[in-house]
């Protein structure tokens, strides 16, 4: 099935890519997708985006069709045909 991944912020700069379409097997979970991306983009992707134990890193938000995955069961969430996944930084105000 086809899904789309969109990158914002430092991840976009790191990958030098705004978005990409991917073909993934049925029943692929979000974690499965991130692991696949990690194989392509290497350790720096893991370091920025998620902990291999299955947790999104602090300061990063991952949404599926606009909804934060924390509300969708987290990284175990199964993806569906046509899902749009966005990986975005999340900044907190300063002084």
């Amino acid at each position, binding site marked *: 099935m086809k899904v789309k991944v969109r990158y914002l912020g430092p991840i*976009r700069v790191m990958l030098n890519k705004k978005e990409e379409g991917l073909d993934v097997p049925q029943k692929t979970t979000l974690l499965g997708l991130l692991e696949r991306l990690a194989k392509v983009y290497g350790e720096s992707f893991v370091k920025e985006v998620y902990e291999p134990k299955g947790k999104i890193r602090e300061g990063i938000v991952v949404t599926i069709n606009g909804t*934060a995955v924390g509300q969708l069961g987290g990284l175990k969430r199964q993806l569906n045909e046509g899902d749009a996944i966005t990986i975005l930084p999340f*900044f*907190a105000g*300063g002084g």
Partner: protein
Amino acid sequence: MYAYTGKILHVNVSNGNVKTKTFDDEFAQTYIGGTGFGIKTLIDNQKPGIDAFDPENPLIYALGAVCGTMVPCAASKFGVFAKSPQSNMLGEAYSTGAWGAELRHAGYDIIVIKGKAKKPVYLWIDDESVQLMDASHIWGKSTLETEETIKKDLGDQYIRVSAIGQGGENLVRVACLINDYFRAAGRTGLGAVMGSKNLKAVAVRGSNDVKVASPSDLQELCRDLYERCKGPKTSKYRTLGTAANVLSMNSQACMPTRNFQSATFEGAEKVSGEYLNENYVVKIQGCTSCAMRCEHIATVPEGTFKGATARVEYEPTMAFGPYCGVDRLDAVIRAIELSNLYGVDAISTGIIIGFAMECFEKGIINEKDTGGLALNFGNAEAMTQMVEKIALRQDVGNIFAEGVKGASEKLGHGSEEFAMHIKGVEMTGYDVRGLKTAALGYAVSRRGADHQRHGAYGPDLGGQVDRFKAEKNRGPIVMANEDNYCIFDSMILCKFSRGIWKGYDEIAKLYTMVTGIPMKGKELQVAGERMSNLARLYNIREGLTRKGDTLPPRVMKLPIPEGVAKGSFVSQQDLDILLDGYYEARGWTNEGVPKPERLKALKLADYSNIIKKKRESKA
């Protein structure tokens, strides 16, 4: 006493009287610094109910507990406090740079300034020498010219200056204080309080050492903290900087656009952090002792605004960009630069201009009022010119200099319905219609519309809660965040570093290493709660009721028109659920008044008369 100087400098600019008072370990342990010192000093030194421009309204500077030490990202932070001319309640704003550390080296932790000088003056603190200097020649000058002139006049480039620009002189209600060229104590109009005293600046030079209690232990901890600061938890701040939030907020449909008429901006890419860094950023720098370096200095290379230079963050980018329908970063950079030079809060000024643009498009004001400006959304040149008109109170700028609340009251014609403020303070860069935990944080924020007292957008955007749902359980979340932020703003630690800390226990350990004063994590947490309650008492004393814990009408009536948050708004029923949950968590009455037993537990029993008076007036 370690780190703390234990000294409070009282200056009366009416007659030049200067007194130094002291505080002891118990005061330090109870109120920590920054927020705690500021609110405590304000409530104790301000006669209840006076006007913000009354000479007796004290303008207070308070240093963070670890200011002037090697603690990373915390070495020069300070807060400024007074009764706010915007909210007529608690005014507080924080800044960094190098000014704060200099004050501690000069030998003071707190400055309390009262009175009104007969002619413009500035305060010159050179260790024990404290003088009022003639400021006639710098009155009417920008913050930059003021800082440079004072340094030149006194013959020392290392003097640190916290100054107002023309905005503060003209009592613009969103006027701020600028120090170290780019750093602002921005919110709640404290520059106007300084201006009302005919005080142009506070210049400081210090030569004393700051001694800490356990230097070796502190060195070891700081080495580790510096390493953590360089790690992944803070990398985003030094790469693209906070302006990268533009696309994040836009993707989540919480980007305030065209005065909250929308929550997504079609031109977001063009004002994004990504675009900024590729085309405008010339330097990335940090504050004294900073290991993160978040300041993105941008310069316009060509065109109408060629040469304009400013430190660019998400909030002012939102305010002068999407909020005004402007998709040109050159104009955004120029507007931020002008705000710094004139000394007006870049967030509030942008929000005011967005409001003015809607007034213009609705025919409430016209080109005659604006001095010929076609103030439509998206008119970048007109937007930058409005910054000047507001700071100088020219044309319709004189009305908008009163802030969104004051201007809407003067303009009428239904403009109150789209005046985006809470407690008189302009909204900031989160469309809380689709962020209901944040909506509660904003409604109860002690300094009016604000994301910085609570950071409650975090659980909403991070997906820890359903951001579209109002539930009572958001109360404890907001309360915990507020108390935690009180401690961050008392130590004062940069909030960008919050991810590196291992909870209250580690911060308490740091506090003891620096000050030698025993502190446990739990005690620090209670101190945060104490500060939140003291701030509430101050605001109640100045007139706050449950009715004041509210949101702008547009947030409560107009659903977000598009994007992933389409249809969301905060109804009165939602707000009531949220407020009930918050008051309950705090142990307050359903009118939002602290109870005597809690005050006693928080060592605030001395202030029980405030709630007693409240109960009596109700009866």
